């Protein structure tokens, strides 16, 4: 209890509140702007937070994450251009409702269901994080190795264009993390005589390159894309009666979203799509989906925001990111000298509760900011790309340079961006690579420690029941994406 109070007291400092509020504002803004995203904003902000109080900067990022998820829905509803991938499902009915002359109602439903989904997940987060951390404290290196392999295998099921490519990207990310001095032996690996590479590839420039630069190059193809905006007048919150009629959908989606968020590597996009599908499946009027139906908005909105909260649970309790954005928050924790994983809650519990508080605050703040500023946020989509993206490049340039005042990092950022652009064209997503890069050190470290403990015999790893469990889960998660295909192959074809 003392830690909870300490965390909240920390949050109540004016500077911290302002930073969190700023995080919400930036989150809604980048969420609303198609092309910009919360992972990109976090990657760009990360180097500038080094000099800030760690609790404040991590809380700001957590607030930005929550708000960014909602921000994407504003443009999804008003201009049918989801600002962020999780808002794609919201656009299906949100835009239709706006077209039917009720943009204000659509925004109100999206905002309130987002907040309710977010709060639901935060409550789970508050109770689940210490519990999970308690379990994880009993883990040895071999169990941790099993867990991180399972987390990487979840990349197969992560939203993206191809499961195999997600796994390849994840493996490449882990591989890149091996560059630099090998801690166990002191051997320099893959430095090719470049002094800067002996320290390894730094997260921040790679993250900026992959999220910001590759998107800049993608945007260079669509400079003349026109958008049509709905008038966002008559914003209104849903009535109590309306909310009561939607309570089943909101609760179901919140639970589903939180669960999906907690699963390593799964994120808001999967949650939103599943939230939409489940809302339709349980609906008494499924035929109305796609025509501007309220359940089609609250289903994905509650789920995607709940997933954002849920994704923080494995990130903080296990040190395993629950999504691409939380992978960045994990990188920020490491950058600020924290030990993500079960020790975070035993050594710095106030930080965990401060993050919890920041997310709670963010949920209420974006309700106000999002609704009051919806019209403004829909206008920001009209900032010409010819001016918006050069600005992003400048922030990328400064962000990657500021991290360690080395032009080498700027090159890393740019090259990562160029590779990222061509990788994206070929169906590779940046998030699995980032997850691999961030988990890489832990995978190698725990593997090496386990080999030492089990006298260099991998088969002895199976002495641990928890390791066996994670291996079974790994096999299941690797095969999940192909179940549908296999099932359809063996399904008897209808006789013509």
């Amino acid at each position: 209890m003392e830690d909870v109070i300490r965390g909240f007291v920390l949050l109540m400092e004016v500077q911290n509140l302002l930073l969190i509020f700023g995080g919400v504002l930036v989150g809604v803004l980048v969420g609303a702007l198609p092309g910009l995203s919360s992972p990109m904003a976090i990657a760009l902000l990360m180097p500038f937070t080094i000099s800030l109080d760690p609790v404040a900067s991590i809380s700001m990022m957590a607030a930005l994450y929550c708000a960014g998820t909602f921000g994407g829905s504003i443009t999804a509803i008003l201009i049918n251009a989801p600002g962020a991938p999780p808002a794609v499902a919201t656009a299906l009915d949100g835009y239709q409702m706006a077209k039917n002359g009720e943009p204000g109602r659509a925004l109100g439903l999206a905002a309130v269901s987002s907040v309710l989904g977010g709060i639901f997940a935060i409550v789970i987060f508050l109770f689940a994080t210490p519990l999970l951390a308690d379990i994880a404290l009993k883990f040895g290196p071999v169990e941790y190795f099993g867990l991180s392999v399972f987390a990487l295998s979840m990349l197969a099921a992560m939203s993206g264009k191809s499961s195999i490519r997600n796994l390849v990207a994840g493996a490449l990310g882990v591989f890149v993390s091996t560059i630099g001095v090998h801690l166990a032996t002191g051997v320099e690996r893959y430095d090719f005589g470049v002094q800067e590479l002996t320290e390894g590839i730094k997260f921040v420039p790679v993250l900026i390159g992959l999220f910001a630069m590759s998107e800049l190059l993608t945007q260079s193809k669509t400079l003349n894309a026109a958008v049509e905006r709905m008038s966002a007048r008559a914003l209104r919150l849903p009535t109590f009666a309306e909310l009561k009629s939607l309570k089943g959908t909101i609760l179901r989606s919140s639970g589903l979203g939180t669960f999906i968020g907690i699963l390593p590597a799964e994120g808001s996009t999967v949650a939103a799509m599943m939230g939409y599908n489940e809302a339709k499946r349980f609906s008494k009027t499924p035929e109305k989906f796609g025509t501007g139906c309220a359940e089609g908005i609250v289903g994905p909105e509650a789920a995607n925001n709940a997933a954002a909260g849920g994704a923080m649970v494995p990130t903080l309790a296990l040190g395993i990111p629950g999504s691409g954005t939380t992978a960045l928050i994990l990188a920020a924790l490491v950058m600020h000298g924290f030990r993500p994983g079960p020790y975070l809650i035993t050594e710095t519990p106030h930080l965990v509760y401060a993050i919890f508080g920041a997310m709670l605050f963010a949920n209420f703040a974006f309700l106000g900011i999002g609704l009051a500023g919806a019209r403004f946020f829909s206008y920001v989509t009209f900032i010409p790309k010819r001016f918006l993206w050069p600005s992003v490049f400048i922030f990328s340039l400064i962000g990657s340079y500021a991290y360690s005042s080395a032009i080498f990092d700027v090159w890393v950022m740019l090259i990562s961006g160029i590779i990222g652009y061509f990788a994206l064209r070929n169906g590779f997503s940046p998030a699995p690579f980032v997850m691999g890069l961030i988990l890489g050190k832990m995978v190698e470290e725990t593997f090496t420690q386990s080999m030492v403990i089990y006298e260099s015999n991998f088969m002895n790893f199976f002495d641990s029941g928890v390791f066996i469990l994670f291996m079974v889960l790994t096999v299941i998660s690797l095969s999940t994406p192909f179940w549908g295909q296999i099932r359809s192959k063996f399904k008897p074809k209808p006789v013509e």
Partner: protein
Amino acid sequence: MSEEKKTFDFAPRTLGAGFIHKKDLVLAIILVAFGAFMYYEAGKFPEAPAILGDTLNADVFPKMLITILFILVAIIPFEFKITPAKIAKIDKDRGDRTLPITWFTIVLLLVIVSFAEFLGAVVTMFITCLALPLLWGERNYIAVAIYSVVFPGFVYLLFNKLLGLYFNPGILELLK
């Protein structure tokens, strides 16, 4: 008849020539070549002292990863057989050639970064704000001029003056 021809042409282009996907094969070859080079490089790492044992050698983990990578990459050219809809989507995205504007943007960014240290932060920002919108076809020269002065000025004030971030003066130092 024409409809039939369209259908006939569509399949090989999107899904590669029957058994193997050509574009994905090229992609797999690139990844395998990268992996093979890294595997070869790992073989050159010095061995750990005997007291630490074989499994602690610096090449063990990278070699293991590259082997996993090879297995995964081997599936890529045949992925269109397993998940045809997903690969068709990827094919649609990469079907369009990279536009000249994207290539020019890449070249411009490489040039900017090459000279960034010499030019210094402020001049680099100014040139970026001037050159990138013009390259991307912005013809409102007044807006570009205002943007190229105001935005770097704002960034300089915010990060250098307010947040105390070091900005390399570069070429501006010569003017002092």
